């Protein structure tokens, strides 16, 4: 008889948090670019990297600029992402999402994604 021990989810009390719920795009010091900031808190021991993205109402990606779109966040640490969006995409940008990057899928099996809505 085959014997399997298959991890499906692992580690209790792991959390991924993102705020604010409704970030506001403001004019930046760079002409033609608007800027906003979101903060991601990593309370997942099993996740070291988070990816940020900007999306339209249908969750299709919108071009943006950030110092990091994929960023390592240590356990129990915050990271702030500053996101610049070209004004020509501003009206289409609806969501800013952070997504956990599962690098160790043998010990973790929940991909968490949190999306804030641009004001």
């Amino acid at each position, binding site marked *: *008889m*085959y*014997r*399997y*021990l*298959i*991890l*499906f*989810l*692992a*580690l*209790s*009390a*792991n*959390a*991924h*948090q*993102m*705020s*604010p*719920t*409704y970030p506001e795009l403001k004019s930046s010091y760079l002409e033609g670019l608007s800027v906003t900031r979101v903060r991601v808190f990593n*309370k*997942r021991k099993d996740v070291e990297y988070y990816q940020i993205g900007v999306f339209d109402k249908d969750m299709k990606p919108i071009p943006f600029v950030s110092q990091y779109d994929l960023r390592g966040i240590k356990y129990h640490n915050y990271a702030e992402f500053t996101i610049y969006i070209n004004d020509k995409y501003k009206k289409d940008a609806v*969501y800013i*999402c952070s997504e956990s990057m*599962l690098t160790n*899928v*043998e010990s*973790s*099996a*929940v*991909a*968490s*994604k*949190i*999306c*804030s*809505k641009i004001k």
Partner: protein
Amino acid sequence: MIKEIALIGIVAITTYGGSKSAFALDVPISAEVTGSCVISVETNGTYGQPNAYKLSTSSSDGGQQPITRVDVTLANAYKVKFTAPDSFSSSPVLNDVVTFTGDTEVSAVSDATNMADYETDKVEVDMSDEYSLTATGSTWFKHSSTASNGGDRAFPSGNYTAYVVAECIAI
């Protein structure tokens, strides 16, 4: 004489005032309260194997259903969507088509009055279950998943992993 008394008074007031500001410190405690969504993995999940060609998280099949918790600090600001796995993220080489089924249901709530309708109001589309989070607080969700190997042929030996996608989306 009058000038001296006035001068002493001014000095006394100044000194008192100076002493007061030296000993009374305003210690600021600041906070910026913004709404947020938190997704937590509460309970590990495992597949059990009731027979050679089926893997299941059901306890009756020897598995364990994973539980996630979602906390929101704003009412009517988020929806949460869970998508059950429709493939393995890692597995041995499989020569047969594997059929997945999956479901999510509310297992507990922090506000029984305002969250009572979460389960009945959920929207199910294919492998996804979507809930509108109309109240602040915590909601626990229990997920189930089964994988059946095609032709009732036995799964090859090895480690299998699949994952649920939990999304919390501001509305």
